[in-house]
């Protein structure tokens, strides 16, 4: 039960937490029905091939097999995709990436399904894969899709660059950077349970970030109206962007409808590496022009994102990469081009940052390079150029709220550095300190209206007012359902609040992505609560009039701590008395402030709802002979606007920072001619408890006056400047100019 002390600013325990430590919390992979069948996906072993034949007869012949489906069996749209529906539900004609789904087999048990899938004979005419995104941009390159290799292109010209060349600058630094492909590596595998509804529809229990976007795509592929597909958010074992696209959804639902039986799907870890889009690998070419004192004059950037075989979220990611390309700095002139390219590498899409992590590595590296070129301190150069309130982005958008970039960097710089170890001599080691800053927008951009819906019901039970908040916001472990509860407690002034996770029968909350849920769903919950509060007060006035207290009824009234209080703070009635047997039931839709598309010529427009800012400091020790890096300490400062749940926020800062460390030092999907070489935790290394040092967090609250409760998006920022700061620290320790992440020991100590 919640208490009044569990409102905004407190850190009450999440309602799911006890079940999780006891082991009873059901994730999507834990669901089962007695009569369910297991389904398994057959995937392409080739990055590029023409399918000449698919012979499923041997699979059908395996005892216990119930169904085998290929593209021929898809009743509706054969392709899906949130932005550009170009991704086959099951391959037909051509497979375009290693791991592309070709068929699905359902059987009485998992082992039988796997064995039967292995019996399917697919004829492949192997083709040469397109694997170089930079080459794919050149005219005459082999095509991945007939319409050309460019998925999306965003062009920004700001300042004098709109009418001509960039100005001359006394100091010019250039760099070419590479960010390799990172995987979300959420621990809970892709999984779901599809149950036929009996009315020709289907219910799907699935771990997802976006139940309503899933529904829309599933319905289209199954040729069903959307109300026949009910997506029920099931327990999620982490997401980080990797559950925004479909994985098991259509496959499981289709077979469930065909068989009239529940269908369970659950990917293995190996399969998971093939089962969702990854973070785009990128090549970034930057030129920074500055005055001799380090004041930026211009930034020119070309960003080439390797989108892989299908579009996924690449169009929006490309826009983000471009709008975030210069970082949290005042840049009077900018020329930015960002492309997402098709290749036969694995499809890439949303991962914590959504196209802004890669530019952060590049622009922060450039700021260090600029500092070195003019002999200035790296923090000083950043402070000199830092954006602030009223600053203008290269899209022309003005920051109309606090933008404490300098403040965050200064706080980190002022933190004492951990004591040096006794000896840096044996073995030869060097200590380095690095700083980085970043920005990230909140919610969807360029005119997308990603609103949220919330419902609040208030009734009296056991003599006390009890509220239920209903939202379809996907809880992926970040704690949105807890935040929602806290907001309701504070806004209703009532301690007893429970939260229900709704399915898609309820209105959309928008995808759990883009650091948006606290802002948008928080806004919806707040709006619904305010509606409820208005109704309580209306009932209160009626009650008071009836009770012959018209003066009080006409005066100012407020709801506080379950009481109706008058203008002098005296209790006039209790909420319970005033409500009686009425049930107050209010639903609200919250739309964030409007945004606008970027104009196609110069990329100008107020495209973002809001920006958040963060900075990191990294302290590393480097074994100079072996090139091995120990991260000694990570510190971060982040402006969260208003901290609804400080402990949960700290958790996001810790977790995002650790993922940034992973990208800096060890995480890379390794490819060879489009083949994934390391689909395993043995060879795709994520940081362990021994790799991540203690992380100091400094949570700054500078409210956004345009946001509900002043909040700013939190979850993505920590994954940005963490990577850049660690690499900056390694550079400081070694004097080596590193331009690629993840950094390998050989980058630090090259050996012929």
């Amino acid at each position, binding site marked *: 039960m919640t208490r009044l002390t569990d409102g905004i600013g407190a*850190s009450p*325990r*999440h309602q*799911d*937490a*006890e079940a*999780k*430590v*006891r*082991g*009873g*919390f*059901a*994730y999507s*992979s*834990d669901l089962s029905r007695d009569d369910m069948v297991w389904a398994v996906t057959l995937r392409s072993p080739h990055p590029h091939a023409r399918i000449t034949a698919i012979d499923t007869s041997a699979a059908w012949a395996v005892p216990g097999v119930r169904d085998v489906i290929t593209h021929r069996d898809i009743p509706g749209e054969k392709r899906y995709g949130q932005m550009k529906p170009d991704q086959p539900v099951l391959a037909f004609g051509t497979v375009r990436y290693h791991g592309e789904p070709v068929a699905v087999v359902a059987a009485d048990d*998992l082992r039988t399904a796997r064995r039967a899938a292995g019996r399917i004979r697919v004829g492949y005419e192997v083709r040469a894969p397109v694997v170089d995104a930079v080459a794919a941009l050149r005219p005459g390159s082999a095509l991945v899709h007939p319409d050309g290799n460019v998925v999306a292109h965003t062009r920004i010209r700001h300042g004098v660059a709109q009418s001509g060349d960039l100005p001359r600058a006394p100091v010019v630094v250039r760099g070419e950077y590479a960010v390799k492909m990172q995987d*979300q*590596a*959420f*621990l*809970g*595998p892709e999984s779901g349970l599809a149950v036929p509804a009996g009315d020709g529809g289907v219910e799907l229990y699935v771990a997802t970030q976006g139940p309503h976007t899933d529904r829309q795509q599933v319905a289209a592929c199954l040729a069903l109206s959307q109300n026949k597909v009910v997506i029920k958010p099931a327990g*999620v*074992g*982490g*997401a*980080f962007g990797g559950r925004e696209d479909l994985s098991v959804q259509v496959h499981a639902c289709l077979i469930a409808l065909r068989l009239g039986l529940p269908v369970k799907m*659950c990917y*293995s*870890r190996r399969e998971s590496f093939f089962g969702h889009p990854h973070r785009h690998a990128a090549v970034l070419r930057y030129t920074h022009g500055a005055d001799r004192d380090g004041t930026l004059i211009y930034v020119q950037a070309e960003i080439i994102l390797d989108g892989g075989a299908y579009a996924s979220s690449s169009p929006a990611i490309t826009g983000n990469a471009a709008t975030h390309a210069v970082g949290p700095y005042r840049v009077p002139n900018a020329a930015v081009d960002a492309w997402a390219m098709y290749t036969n590498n694995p499809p890439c899409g949303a991962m914590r940052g959504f196209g802004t992590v890669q530019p952060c590595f590049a622009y922060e590296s450039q700021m260090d390079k600029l500092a070195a070129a003019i002999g200035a301190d790296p923090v000083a150069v950043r402070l000199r150029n830092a954006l602030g309130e009223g600053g203008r982005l290269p899209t022309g958008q003005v920051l109309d709220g606090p933008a404490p970039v300098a403040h965050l960097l200064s706080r980190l710089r002022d933190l004492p550095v951990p004591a040096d170890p006794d000896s840096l001599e044996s073995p030869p080691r060097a200590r380095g300190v690095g700083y980085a800053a970043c920005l990230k927008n909140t919610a969807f951009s360029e005119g997308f209206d990603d609103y949220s819906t919330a419902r609040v019901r208030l009734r009296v039970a056991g003599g006390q007012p009890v509220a239920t908040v209903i939202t379809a916001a996907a809880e*992926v*472990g*970040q*704690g949105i359902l807890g935040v929602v509860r806290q907001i309701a407690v504070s806004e209703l002034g009532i301690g007893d609040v429970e939260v229900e996770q709704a399915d898609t029968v309820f209105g959309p909350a928008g995808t759990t992505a883009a650091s948006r849920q606290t802002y948008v769903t928080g806004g919806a919950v707040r709006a619904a609560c305010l509606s409820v509060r208005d109704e309580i007060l209306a009932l209160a006035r009626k009650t008071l009039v009836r009770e012959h207290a018209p003066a009080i009824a006409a005066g100012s009234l407020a709801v506080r701590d379950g009481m109706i209080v008058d203008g002098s703070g005296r209790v006039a009635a209790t909420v319970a008395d005033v409500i009686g047997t009425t049930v107050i039931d209010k639903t609200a839709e919250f739309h964030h402030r409007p945004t606008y598309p970027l104009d196609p010529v110069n990329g100008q427009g107020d495209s973002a709802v809001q920006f958040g800012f963060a900075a990191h400091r990294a302290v590393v020790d480097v074994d100079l002979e072996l090139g091995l890096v120990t991260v000694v300490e990570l510190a971060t400062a982040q402006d969260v606007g208003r901290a609804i749940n400080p*402990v*949960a926020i*700290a*958790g996001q*800062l*810790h*977790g*995002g*920072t*650790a*993922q940034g460390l992973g990208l800096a030092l060890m995480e890379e999907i390794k490819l060879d001619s489009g083949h994934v070489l390391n689909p*395993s*935790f*043995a060879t795709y290394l*994520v940081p*362990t*408890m*021994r790799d*991540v040092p*203690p*992380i100091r967090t400094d949570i700054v609250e500078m409210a956004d006056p345009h946001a509900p409760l002043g909040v700013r998006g939190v979850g993505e920022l920590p994954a940005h400047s963490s990577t850049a700061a660690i690499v900056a620290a390694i550079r400081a320790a070694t004097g080596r100019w590193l331009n690629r992440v993840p950094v390998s020991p050989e980058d630090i100590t090259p050996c012929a």
Partner: protein
Amino acid sequence: MTQLSVTVNGKRYQADGSAEGESLLFVLRERWGFTSVKNACEEGECGGCAVLLDDVLANSCLVLAAQADGASVTTVEGLHDGGSLHPVQRALLDEGAVQCGFCIPGMVMAASDLLRRCPRPPEAVIRWELAGNLCRCTGYQKIVEAVLRAAGTTREASGT
């Protein structure tokens, strides 16, 4: 092929002999319904499936069901004594260390095993001993703090 009999959390469970070549993880989850034991990699890399096998911490994905025949297994449900929480579980809650929670059952098993063997481990030992339990959400920070708390120590006192 003989029947398998394993004592789980003090209670005897049986499976027919055809299960002997499966992993203990598979049998615990799919035959006996212990879904608290998680499958996050099935190759011994992540620790999500950690259980106590005859009081020794093991990744159940790497144990053959046949090897557990006649043995005793403890899962996270077997740790709470009559319903009340183990100190590690309580500390994880109090520290706010649980995000998605998928790593948590394995983490609880590993941490409780560590504290049984070493009641007041310094932070460096905690990080070394629990390195086989991956977490993707928390950056490990609050998990480490929770283990220190459960051990009755603070970060300062642990010598870090």
